[in-house]
């Protein structure tokens, strides 16, 4: 028998049982595309979390005032004093002898204000800080100039504003640089526009304005010398943990307490990243497991269909053997059928998986993992071939009369 005869017989076998063939293809298709899409979603979400954390700035520690000493129960009378982050802390941490791994410290005095320009108003958060803040938080300017140390020192009312603030206050095409806007009632001159960064977690990093902390404290926040947080930039990511302990040591010393009882939270970018990474890789594994189960269920569906039709097919095999088909001719036919069906189902699954991963799924851009395609396709083909072939092999080994009598 020629290969083309075998091929024709296999194609006839496939088209003669359209429903069975379609269901087999469907089972494999769903399994394969589910694996590809779910793994891609897991992959995509972990990549986007990583990106967001990286966007927070590079090699930075964030010192946040928790407002209260210690982590144990507060004992009344002894801990009424409010802990604050002040310029003294900034100076101490900036001291290269005490904290050799710290590159810069940027104090943050922030508040939410209503910005007004002409008749346009927009609610935005204002960060009062120093010149190093932009670099520490990875902000760049799309036009204009950043706030300078000189302007910080002289309490100058200048401001760098985010792209959303620009689009909400100014007409399209209007150059905001040199214009004066009102924050609450204080006048600030716009000297720069920040390049867009997108959203990071809950905060929209483009709906922001950065001004000298001195001017912000004078006009907007009201407390003098006190900050809500400090952004500490480390010299390198490898020494960030060293910088963290140096900062904690200094703060503990100035506040007369131990590192464990520090009234501040020191958030380490690197720790955050590794925590987030392990969380998202757990997510990927979970999604992968769900996908693997769906592939398995698809495979069981295929098996079921193959076994249900085995009675009919066993009779057919009996007839074929009775009119002179050899066992090998029958095996080739069924192998061809199984291979064709599972290749088709697998390939269709890959195609649908690739199409499916082009869409945003729940805010995540899926990122296709090459291994998931190979794995899903491979498993699908193995399942299809095995369950197509195994019952046929058993039937082909029967004597024709037993196969004809089979039920």
């Amino acid at each position, binding site marked *: 028998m020629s290969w083309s005869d075998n091929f024709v017989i296999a194609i006839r076998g496939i088209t*003669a049982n359209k429903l069975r063939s379609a269901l087999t293809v469907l089972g494999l298709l769903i399994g394969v595309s589910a694996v590809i899409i779910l793994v891609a979603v897991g992959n995509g979400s972990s990549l986007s979390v990583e990106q967001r954390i990286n966007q927070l700035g590079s090699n930075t520690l964030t010192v946040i005032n928790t407002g209260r000493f210690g982590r144990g129960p507060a004992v009344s009378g002894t801990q009424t004093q409010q802990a604050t982050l002040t310029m003294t802390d900034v100076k101490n941490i900036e001291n290269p002898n005490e904290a050799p791994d710290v590159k810069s410290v940027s104090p943050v005095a922030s508040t939410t204000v209503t910005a007004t320009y002409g008749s346009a108003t927009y609610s935005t958060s204002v960060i009062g800080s120093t010149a190093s803040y932009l670099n520490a938080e990875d902000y760049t300017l799309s036009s204009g100039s950043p706030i300078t140390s000189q302007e910080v020192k002289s309490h100058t009312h200048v401001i760098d504003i985010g792209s959303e603030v620009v689009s909400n206050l100014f007409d399209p095409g209007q150059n905001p640089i040199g214009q004066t806007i009102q924050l609450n009632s204080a006048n600030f001159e716009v000297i720069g526009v920040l390049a867009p960064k997108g959203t990071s977690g809950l905060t929209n990093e483009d709906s922001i304005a950065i001004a000298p902390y001195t001017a912000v404290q004078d006009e907007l926040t009201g407390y003098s010398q006190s900050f809500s947080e400090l952004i500490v930039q480390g010299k390198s990511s490898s020494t960030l943990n060293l910088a963290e302990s140096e900062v904690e040591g200094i703060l503990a010393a100035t506040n007369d307490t131990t590192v464990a009882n520090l009234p501040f939270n020191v958030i380490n970018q690197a720790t955050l990243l590794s925590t987030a990474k392990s969380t998202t890789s757990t997510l990927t594994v979970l999604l992968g497991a769900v996908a693997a189960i769906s592939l398995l269920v698809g495979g069981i569906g295929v098996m079921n269909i193959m076994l249900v039709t085995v009675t*009919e097919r066993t009779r057919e095999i009996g007839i*074929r053997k*009775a*009119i*002179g088909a050899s066992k090998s*001719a029958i095996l080739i036919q069924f192998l061809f059928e199984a291979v064709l069906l599972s290749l088709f189902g697998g390939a269709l699954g890959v195609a649908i998986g690739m199409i499916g991963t082009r869409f945003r799924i729940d805010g995540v851009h899926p990122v296709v993992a090459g291994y998931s395609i190979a794995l899903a396709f491979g498993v699908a083909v193995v399942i299809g071939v095995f369950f197509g072939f195994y019952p046929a092999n058993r039937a082909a080994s029967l*004597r024709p*009369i037993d196969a*004809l009598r089979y039920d």
Partner: protein
Amino acid sequence: MTSTLAKTDTDISTRSSRPVIVLRNITKTYMMGSVAVDVLRGISMTIDHGDFVAIMGASGSGKSTTMHIIGCLDIPSRGYYWLDGIDVRTLTDTDLSMIRNRKIGFVFQSFNLIPRLSVLANVELPLTYRGVNKQERRERSTAALAATGMSHRLTHMPTELSGGEQQRVAVARAIVTNPSIILADEPTGNLASHQSAEVMNIFSQLNAEGRTIVLVTHEKDIAEYAKRIIRIQDGVVVEDIRSLPVNAMPPRLESNPSTTYHTVLSPGSYKTDTLNSGLGAYTPPSESIHRRPK
């Protein structure tokens, strides 16, 4: 009552006859749970090359079981079966497939057409397994279907046919390979009398060409087409009556039949029908066509 074939041979033919089917003390026992049911209880028969045999017997007497064993579709529980001088127990599964494909044409009592293949595809299938090319396959299948009066149903599915039509397709499938042995289990059971006559005339023609025909029938007038009638009762041969010698012309061959089935396409193509290797003393039946007085 049981006559052995050795005796028959000497009785009827002085010409050197060649046994093609030899059964000796064939038994078949089915286990029904723990109870053994003896369906065949020592069947012996010898059928010569070119014979035309009708097997008769009551329902359940074991005719189909015997035919399945002769057709290499089933194996006996005990006993010996030589096909063309070869003990079939020594043959491999592949050998048996080859024999079923090239040497034997089998018409099942229950037709056994493949339900999801068209009439034409069903008849072509044995030729496909033999490796006959597409065009020749088509020609031979159409000819076989024409001979059984089924030309008008080539593209139908078996389920779209009446019982008689399915039976004629089954006959066409059995004769399409030009087998040297045709085994037909009640091939006219579902046919009207004129259709029966046509099918029986095909068998008579094939027998006139030297092919061996064994058929099972309940009907006396169908059995009259044969040269010899074997009766089976409760799994044993109870009667074996020969009415014509093995090398005689079949008794009811129509001299000018309305349907003529020409099996010999060309001497070359016929040669491929034989199993030259591994099966010993088999020679193409075309030889005997020339020998035969016409």
